[in-house]
């Protein structure tokens, strides 16, 4: 006897109707499954219905006027193989490659990663600094939310019980970088990660930190300290100092607070330099 029933609605409307028909506590939504199924195995999730998005037409990748929209069920591996992603959103390409392994990325999706809102997600810090918008679809239509507003806490998002993530939309391409520290460089969970991006439109930096509980966060005061497009050494110095105070760098099994404090400044400076094309900043 199966522990849950698998539902595979064929249309978006059917999927929404299925969501509405089942009590939220009793069902979960399945995209790639690489995180969800582990929770089911460990008993952290015990749904009676699993709603698969496999048949929905959301494995898409679209460029509109040079900006990217990624369908929520597109495999990360497909995103990684699109050469323009690395050119226009370098941090996104770097972060996607930081996730798991090739086989895992053939299943895992951007939508699933966002919906699961894992505190150690490698993608979320990058979505934050790229000002990605989450397109949600529900019974009364669609709405958009910034990723920052979408994320509420560790494993908690602002999605309504009868909504699904349809796509993630990225605004204008940005010089950007994602750097992380791990015990193992690959196939591991980051002890600390930094994403940075320069917005040519807004003429501001965006900085986010990841890899620490409870969730990845934007650090606006650090971004502000970086100033203009080519921060000098004094701006970098100030930004580093602010970064080490800007967020509660809690200790856990993966790293101590002091070590994270050391990392946050080092990775910030390196990420900014990397975003600027490796050229000397300052």
């Amino acid at each position, binding site marked *: 006897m199966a*522990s849950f029933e698998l539902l595979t609605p064929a249309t978006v409307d059917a999927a929404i109707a299925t969501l509405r028909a089942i009590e939220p506590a009793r069902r979960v939504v399945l995209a790639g499954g690489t995180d969800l199924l582990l929770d089911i195995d460990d008993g952290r999730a015990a749904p009676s219905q699993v709603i698969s998005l496999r048949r929905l037409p959301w494995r898409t990748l679209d460029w509109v006027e040079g900006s990217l929209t990624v369908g929520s069920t597109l495999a990360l591996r497909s995103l990684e193989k699109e050469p323009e992603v690395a050119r226009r959103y370098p941090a996104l390409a770097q972060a996607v490659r930081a996730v798991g392994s090739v086989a895992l990325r053939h299943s895992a999706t951007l939508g699933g990663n966002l919906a699961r809102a894992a505190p150690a997600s490698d993608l979320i810090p990058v979505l934050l600094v790229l000002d990605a918008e989450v397109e949600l679809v529900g019974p009364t239509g669609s709405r958009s939310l910034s990723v920052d507003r979408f994320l509420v806490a560790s494993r908690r998002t602002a999605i309504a019980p009868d909504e699904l993530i349809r796509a993630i939309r990225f605004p204008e391409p940005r010089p950007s970088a994602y750097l992380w*520290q791990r*015990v*193992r*460089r*690959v*196939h*591991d*969970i980051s002890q600390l990660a930094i994403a940075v991006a320069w917005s040519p439109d807004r003429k501001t930096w965006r900085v986010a930190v990841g890899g620490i509980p409870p969730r990845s966060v934007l650090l606006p005061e650090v971004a502000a300290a970086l100033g203009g497009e080519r921060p000098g050494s004094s701006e970098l110095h100030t930004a580093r100092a602010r970064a080490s105070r800007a967020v509660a760098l809690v200790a856990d*099994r993966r*790293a*101590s607070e*002091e*070590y994270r*404090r*050391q*990392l946050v400044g*080092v*990775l910030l400076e390196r990420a900014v330099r990397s975003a600027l094309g490796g050229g000397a900043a300052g």
Partner: protein
Amino acid sequence: MRPSVRPDAAVKLAGKAAYGMDLDAPGMLWGALVTAPVARGRLRSLDLEPAHDLPGVVAIGPDDLPSLLPPSRGEPDRAIFPTEEIAYCRQPLAAVAAPTWAGARRAAAAVRVVVDAEPALVDLESLFPEWPGPDARRSPNVLAYVHAKHGDVEGAFRTADRVVEETYRTAGVHQVALEPHACLASVEDGVWRVRTSTQSPFGVREDVASLLGIPESSLVVEGTWVGGGFGGKGASLVEPYALLLARASGRPVRLALSYREEFELGRTTLPAVIRFSTAVKEGRLAARRVRLLLDGGSSLPGRDFATGYAINFLLGPYRTPAFEVEGYGIRTNKPPFGPHRAPFAPQCAFALESHLDEVARAIEVDPWAFRAAHVWRDGDETPLGQRVGPFGLRAALDAAGELARRWRAEIGPGEGVGIALGFWSTNTGAGGEVRLELAPTELRVVQGEREIGSGSVLAGLAAVAARATGLPPERISIDYGDTSRAPFDSGVYGSRTVGALGRAIVEATASVRRTLAERLRATEPVHLGVDGGEIVAITGTVRRPIRELLRPEERESGLVATGQHYARTGSIDESRVVEGAFYPFTDFTGSAHVAQVAVDRDTGSVTVTRYAAFQDVGVVIDRETARAQVEGAIAMGLGTALTEEAIWSEEGRLENPGLLDYRIPTLGEVPVPEVTLIEGYPGAGPFGAKGLGEPPIIPVPATIAVAVREATGAHVTELPLSAERIVRALKLL
């Protein structure tokens, strides 16, 4: 030439090799263990009823044992299920079986276990905060105590130019064989039968028979293909429970550990604390005191062995005029200590070699020269008075020194090159036998081991048989039998397989030649060869097909000869032993390694850019297999050096029981090493071969530690050398 350098390549690449995990049988039940929820406590009650109530479930606990086992069963040396004291978290308390895997897991979860938790002893150092005093060894928490002394230690320290004192700490590490422990058991007509993924079918038979109180003759153990052992599959683990469930249900029962249980229940190397005090006089080692606290977990199988053998590696392969060593095995609420590829020797070498570097730096002597000045040469004495040699370590050190000088000339800032040494011994003393069957067209080597992956059985024994008989490898087959059919062997461990079974093959070959000589009435030595597809015996100008030399009763079996090797060599000077057991070496196997690392000073990340091993092998039996052993051991050692660490909570719960949190090296972290096999210093194996399964892992953590220090100045005294520890040692935190 064989089509592949691996005789088992084709079957494994086709996905056709059946491992313990792959076994099934008609009517089979799936087993699962009910395990302790706490690391220490009293078992108040164990209620199997809720499991019994589920469809098709069989559940057994301590109360069921009398009805399942012979009444004559004596008091076993260890309990099958504890009835009062819980010794470690996840200790098996009961077992269940059900028609499906999910059903077995539900049944295990349904068993009601009530325990009174007690504070667990987890941290090795908390028992003796001030280090064990004179009375400590009478503590019930001291599982083993060894003490040896030689020379005028006090005098040497009194008159020393310099004394260097240091403390090192090493972490628990897991074997991480990719295949979990798994077996399939049945009990029929009084015969208990288990097919299992094991390094030692006969060891499992002895173990299980004594635990269950059944005669060895009524228990048949058959090995399967083994998905990695590394010491973790030497003793029984799942087999007794599977057999009991089979007995209780009357059905075949499969019992496999989940990978989580593999980490939680597996027996392996546990943490240790090592203290050195070294006296130096006129640039030379004058005396050393070594004290060891080894975490024994809830028991220390082969009690003194772990302490009394390991301690040798803390004195190292160096001339030490005076020494005193003391080792304690401490009981904690963890699973029992168990063997892990060269048990505890890599940790000892890390501590000792790092300490030697510190000593050399303290007296401003080049570390390589300091090692060269003290390393054993043939004829030297070990600290326990055993004569050294033949030993290729000095040759390996010279070659490593040459290479390190070349690499040092090429490195940039943030990079460093380190050298460290290790040694080991071929454990041929543990006995083994083989049966040769010489048939008209092939020579069958019948023995009791399955190939665990090292190549020692399928490639190694075939190469020995080819060399001993003069027959080409394609004429030789390595046959395996279960414990009711195969000659006895003690197991694939201790770098002993080629050594012991190889010597047995050489002995059996001599017997074959003698028999053939009698039948040929030969006056000259008899050789074997191949003529037109048939094996022939050759003496002088006579060439006779084996077919013509077989007696009628040998048509099926071929000409049968047996060989055995039980020899134990070497002895120590017992007058140097104060208390406990110390062990001699069978032979001396040296390893010198060179690593080049690049260290990111700001994050502490270490990249191993180049690695080379100079390995004393006695004589090469099979070059590709030998190289593969060295390559694999280096990667495993890099894990011990840099990323692997079992972490227990204060309550004694393993906090990282999975491959995402317990990090073994991936392909990207391991450079392809340069491997040089050094011949000319014969060992205890056939033709002078030395065992190779374990030696090449021993110097790895030490070599990395020395290289990291060369690169950065960071002197890390703890394993693993995590990035955080390196940054801490650089005083950036």
